[in-house]
C-alpha cells in the first residue's frame, strides 16, 4: 500500500499522518521532484503552541520559511473596550501567559500615565511589582530553556525547567492566589499586600534557586550535543535585529546591551543593582547564555526587593491614596477561602451610606480616565512589551493595543531559517521563544 496523494495545481500533495514513512518513501522512490513543501504545525509539539510553519525544502536545506499565525487570536484587545479599566488587567494578563505580571504592569503603567498618577504609586507597590516581575522572568526563562531541550530531544532540561518554574508558581500562588493569569497588578498599585509569610517563602526560593540554575548550567553549558545543535545556528546580527524590530535576549545575544530596565527605568529599577548580560555570537547558544545569565541577575533583584519589602518598606500602602481610583477594599483571605474584608463590609453595610454608594459605583462602573493616549513599556522576558492605551474620557478603554515582543520577534523566522538545515528550524524557532498567546492576543 502506498501513501495517498492527490494531484493539485502546485503538484502532488501527500498527506502524512505519522507511522507511514515507509509507505511514503516507497511512493516517492523514483520521483524526480527536488522541491518539497512541508507544513509544520499548527499542532506540532515543537512549534510552541499553535504556530504553523511552511517550509520549502531542497533536500534538507530550507529554501523558504513562512510563518502563519492567528490560530490563537482571541480578540482580547477588542474585549478590553467593553470592560472597565480595572477589568482590563484580568484580560491582558491572559495574552502572553508565561509573563502575566509583565502584561499587567505594562497595561497599568499606561493607565497610570493617562491618569497622571505615575509619581503617586506607593514605593511598596512598585517593589512588589519588581519582585513579582523578576520571579516571573525566571519562570518564563525556565520554560524557554526547558522546552528548548525537549524540542531537541532531551527531556532532562524540560523536567528541570518545569520543576524550577513550579517553585516560582507556588510562590506566585501564595502571594496572589493564582499560579497564572493572576490580575494582581492594578491601576494604582497591586490588588493586595503580600500575605504573612510571603517574605520567608521567597527567601526559601532564593536559597534553592541559585543551585538549580547552576545545575541547568552544568547540564547544558558545555554539553557537546547541545553545543552542536545551538552554536552558529540561526545567526542574526545586530543590523538584522534592528531592521526587524527585535528586542530582548535575541538583541542582547547580538551584542547590544539594550534593556529598558537600565535605559528607561520604570517601577524604580534605577535603584536596583544588576547587570545586563550580553553575548556577541548572535546565535542560539548566545541567546541561551543570555537567558541563563538574566535569571541570575533576576535573583539579585529579587533579593534586593525582598530586603526592602521586609525592611524600610514594611507596612506601607500598596494602592494609590486617591480613593476614586484605588479598589475600595483591601481584601484578605477569609476563613471561607474567599477574598474578604470584614472591616470594609461592616463599614459600607452598617456605617456609611456614602461609602456603599462609592463602593458600588467604583466596582460596577469603574473610574474615569481623562481623554488622551499613552504608551508604556516594560522589559519583558522576550523583549519590549508595550501597551498603547487610548481613552476617550470614559470608564472603559477606547483602544488597547499590545506591542508584544513575541509577535515582532517571530518575524525573524525567515531570516534565521532560510539557507539552513531543516533540523535547525526547531532550534531557531525555540530560541526566539515565542508565546502564541502573546503573538495572537
Amino acid at each position, binding site marked *: 500500500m502506498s501513501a495517498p496523494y492527490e494531484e493539485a495545481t502546485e503538484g502532488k500533495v501527500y498527506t502524512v499522518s505519522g507511522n507511514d514513512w515507509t509507505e511514503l518513501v516507497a511512493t516517492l522512490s523514483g520521483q524526480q521532484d527536488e522541491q518539497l513543501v512541508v507544513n509544520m504545525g499548527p499542532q506540532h509539539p515543537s512549534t510552541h503552541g499553535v504556530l504553523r510553519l511552511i517550509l520549502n525544502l531542497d533536500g534538507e536545506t530550507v529554501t523558504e520559511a513562512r510563518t502563519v*499565525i*492567528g490560530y490563537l*487570536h482571541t*480578540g482580547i*484587545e*477588542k*474585549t478590553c*473596550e*467593553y*470592560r472597565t479599566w480595572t477589568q482590563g488587567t484580568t484580560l491582558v494578563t491572559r495574552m502572553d501567559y508565561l509573563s502575566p505580571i509583565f502584561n499587567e504592569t505594562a497595561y497599568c503603567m499606561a493607565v497610570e*500615565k*493617562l491618569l*497622571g498618577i505615575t509619581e503617586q504609586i506607593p514605593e511598596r507597590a512598585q517593589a512588589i511589582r519588581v519582585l513579582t516581575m523578576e520571579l516571573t522572568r525566571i519562570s518564563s526563562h525556565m520554560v524557554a530553556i526547558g522546552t528548548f531541550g525537549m524540542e531537541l530531544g532531551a527531556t532532562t532540561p524540560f523536567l528541570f525547567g518545569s520543576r524550577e518554574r513550579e517553585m516560582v508558581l507556588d510562590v506566585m500562588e501564595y502571594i496572589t492566589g493564582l499560579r497564572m493569569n493572576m490580575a494582581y497588578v492594578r491601576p494604582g498599585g497591586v490588588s493586595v499586600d503580600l500575605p504573612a509569610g510571603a517574605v520567608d517563602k521567597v527567601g526559601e526560593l532564593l536559597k534553592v534557586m541559585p543551585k538549580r540554575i547552576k545545575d541547568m548550567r552544568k547540564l547544558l553549558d558545555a554539553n557537546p550535543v547541545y553545543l552542536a545543535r545551538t552554536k552558529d545556528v540561526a545567526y542574526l546580527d545586530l543590523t538584522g535585529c*534592528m*531592521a*526587524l*524590530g*527585535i*528586542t530582548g535576549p535575541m538583541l542582547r545575544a547580538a551584542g*547590544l546591551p*539594550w534593556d529598558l530596565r537600565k*535605559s*528607561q527605568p520604570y517601577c524604580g529599577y534605577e535603584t536596583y543593582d544588576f547587570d545586563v548580560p550580553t553575548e556577541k555570537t548572535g546565535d542560539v547558544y548566545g541567546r541561551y547564555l543570555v537567558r541563563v545569565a538574566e535569571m541570575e541577575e533576576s535573583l539579585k533583584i529579587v533579593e534586593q526587593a525582598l530586603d526592602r519589602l521586609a525592611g524600610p518598606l514594611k507596612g506601607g500602602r500598596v494602592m494609590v491614596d486617591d480613593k476614586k481610583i484605588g479598589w475600595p477594599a483591601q481584601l484578605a483571605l477569609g476563613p471561607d477561602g474567599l477574598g474578604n474584608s470584614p472591616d470594609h463590609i461592616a463599614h459600607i453595610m452598617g456605617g456609611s451610606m456614602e461609602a456603599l*454608594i462609592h463602593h458600588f*459605583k467604583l466596582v460596577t*462602573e469603574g473610574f*474615569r480616565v*481623562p*481623554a*488622551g*493616549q*499613552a*504608551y508604556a*513599556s516594560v522589559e519583558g522576558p522576550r523583549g*519590549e512589551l*508595550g501597551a*498603547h492605551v*487610548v*481613552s*476617550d*474620557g*470614559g*470608564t*472603559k478603554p*477606547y*483602544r488597547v*493595543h499590545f*506591542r508584544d515582543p513575541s*509577535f*515582532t520577534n*517571530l*518575524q525573524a523566522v525567515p531570516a534565521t531559517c532560510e539557507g539552513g538545515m531543516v533540523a535547525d528550524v526547531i532550534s531557531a524557532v525555540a530560541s526566539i521563544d515565542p508565546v502564541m498567546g502573546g503573538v*495572537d*492576543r
Partner: protein
Amino acid sequence: MSTDNLPGVPEEPIARLGMFGAQDSGDTSGYGGLVVRRAPRLSTPRPYGGYFDTVADELERALGGDLADAVERVVVDRGELTFHVKRERLLEVLRHLRDDPALRFELSLGVSGVHYPHLEGEELHAVYHLCSITHNRRLRVEAACPDTDRHIPSSVSIYPTHDWHERETWDFFGIVFDGHPALTRIMMPDDWDGHPQRKDYPLGGIPVDYRGAEIPPPDQRRSYK
C-alpha cells in the same frame, strides 16, 4: 473630573447610554455624570520641553525648513511627543527620522490602528511608536486617512518590522498600506468579512445558537457601553 485634563475647547459631549439596560437616558442614577467629553484635538505650542524641541528642530532641518508642511500637528501630552504627519509625507518623514544622525530612530516598535468614527475626514489613524537607541528618545508618529479612502503608504521599505504590524492593522481596521509586499490578513481567517477592531464592528459579532435559543453577541446581552 478636573477640567485641566481637557485643555482647549472640547467637542460636543457624548452621552454614554444604556448602563444596566436603560436605553432612554444617559445616566441611570444621576450620580456619576455619565456624560463624557471626547478627546479634544490638541495642538501644543512651542516650547515642548525636554528633548522634544530638539527632535522637532532636527526634523524641520532634515525636511528642508518647513515642518508644518509635513507635520499637521505636534502634541505633547503626558510626557509623550506625537507628530501627526500628513500621509503623503509619511515615508519621507519616517526616512529622515530613521537616517538622520541627529534623529536616528532606528528601532520601530510597530504600527497599530485606532478608529475614531467621530473625526470626520480622518477616521482611521495609524500609530507608529519609534525609539532611538542612539539618543535614548521616544516618539509617536500618527498618520490619518478618511474612512472613504483608506490608504496610507506602506513603510515596510523603511522599517521591515512593519511587515506583520501593517498586516495586522489592515486586518483589524481595513487600512490599506499601499506598497506592502503581501497585505493579507494575519489574525483573522483569510475569508473573514469585516475588520473587527473598528468601532462599527460589534464585539462577538456572531449570535450563537444554543438549544433553539439565540444567544446574542456578548456586547448586546447587557448593554455595556
